[in-house]
């Protein structure tokens, strides 16, 4: 089955819950081998999209394919996906080693070495019952068994959210370890933008059910700039076309531009205004886009 180099592709994917439009004509493209960050405010539709991917929800309209197969094709597709969610239910009474043994029987491929490596590195006691593990350890144990079945696509749904820095580092490390040299794909949905900025090479930004941006992270960072313009007190600079955020101060005005910042920069300097351009963090980019998105959906 051809996948055209994409692990996940959707076309005009739409999911409605009654009158509420949770996903609105989303065209997502997750390249094979990428670490794709799906970001956006709470309620933007990230988890709905993932539930569609896992065939826990059926799209209202549009298509969604995983490695070229329709996401609703069931076990053949599902078996290639690993999934770790925040606070996901687990068999509390099981010991870590029993969980690994049980899961190893559910999947055709099992990579016991990868599981051992992760458990050893993170120092999780194989004899401990799941219920006695800390929140970070639970997530790591869940990740270990998901990596164990050698998924082609690993989905982390808010798996980093609310964890201590040490646990987050270990999860990021494990993702990097399983990624390298493999044609594996990771889809991370979450709010921890500084972590995602580290390891993601592609991002999709969902705002109110719409995918407002999808780009390689590096390209997005290169083209999004904040311009700081110094001027005489109380000068009203006109807002450049395409500015996603404007802050007006007494002697300084700041614009965020998603594109064409260089042209505006030159133009302002040509007018004799002292202007500097700053790079933005992923967090700042998301905040600007979320604020500038048109209110209401549909």
């Amino acid at each position, binding site marked *: 089955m051809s996948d055209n180099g994409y692990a996940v592709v959707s076309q005009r994917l739409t999911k409605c819950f009654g009158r509420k439009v949770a996903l609105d004509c989303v065209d997502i493209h997750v390249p094979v*081998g990428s*670490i794709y960050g799906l970001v956006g405010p709470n309620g933007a539709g990230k988890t709905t999209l993932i539930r569609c991917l896992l065939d826990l929800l059926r799209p209202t309209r549009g298509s969604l394919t995983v490695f070229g197969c329709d996401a609703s094709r069931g076990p053949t597709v599902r078996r290639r996906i690993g999934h770790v969610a925040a606070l996901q239910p687990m068999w509390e009474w099981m010991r870590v080693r029993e969980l690994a043994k049980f899961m190893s029987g559910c999947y055709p491929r099992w990579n016991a070495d990868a599981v051992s490596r992760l458990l050893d590195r993170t120092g999780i006691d194989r004899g401990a019952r799941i219920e006695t593990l800390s929140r970070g350890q639970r997530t790591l144990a869940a990740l270990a068994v998901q990596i164990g079945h050698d998924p082609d696509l690993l989905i982390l749904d808010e798996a980093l959210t609310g964890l201590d820095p040490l646990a987050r*580092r270990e999860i*990021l*490390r494990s993702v*990097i*370890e399983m*990624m*390298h*040299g493999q044609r594996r794909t990771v889809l991370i949905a979450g709010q921890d933008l*500084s972590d995602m*900025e*580290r*390891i*993601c*090479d592609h991002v999709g930004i969902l705002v109110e059910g719409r995918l407002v941006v999808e780009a390689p992270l*590096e390209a997005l*960072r*290169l083209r999004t700039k904040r311009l700081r313009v110094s001027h005489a007190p109380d000068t009203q600079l006109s807002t450049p076309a395409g500015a996603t955020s404007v802050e007006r101060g007494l002697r300084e005005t700041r614009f965020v531009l998603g594109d064409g910042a260089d042209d505006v920069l030159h133009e302002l300097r040509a007018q004799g205004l*002292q202007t*500097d351009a*700053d*790079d*933005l*963090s992923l967090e700042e980019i998301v905040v600007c886009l979320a604020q500038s998105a048109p209110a209401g959906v549909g």
Partner: protein
Amino acid sequence: MFDPIDTKSGLPFYRQITDQIHRAVAAGKLQRGDQLPSVRELAMQLLVNPNTVAKVYRDLERDGLLRARRGQGTYIAASASSLAERERSRLIAEQLEQVATDVRAFGMPSESAVDLFRDILTNGRTAKEGLS
């Protein structure tokens, strides 16, 4: 040996890792024949996307600073003296550009700024000593 990535600086991680290797070679902390960590090791250490590290290694190999031996790892191929003058200039220029932004913002005459820099270069005077 590698410093943590600075996520606040706004400088792309690719640039930060490349600059670190350049600086280490220019300062003699990495010398010809020294082995670098594998792509996976360095990505895990710095917590960055392995493709970023792979691209750094690939581009530095193309520039002749690194040499990859198949299945054996990546090594420093260039010595500090052979590091192109223009590379060294670029590293210094990048830092001076930041200083220049402040000089302009403070309205300091260029001559005073240059004098100050010359003074620091010859006397090694730090800002702290200058204030006391």
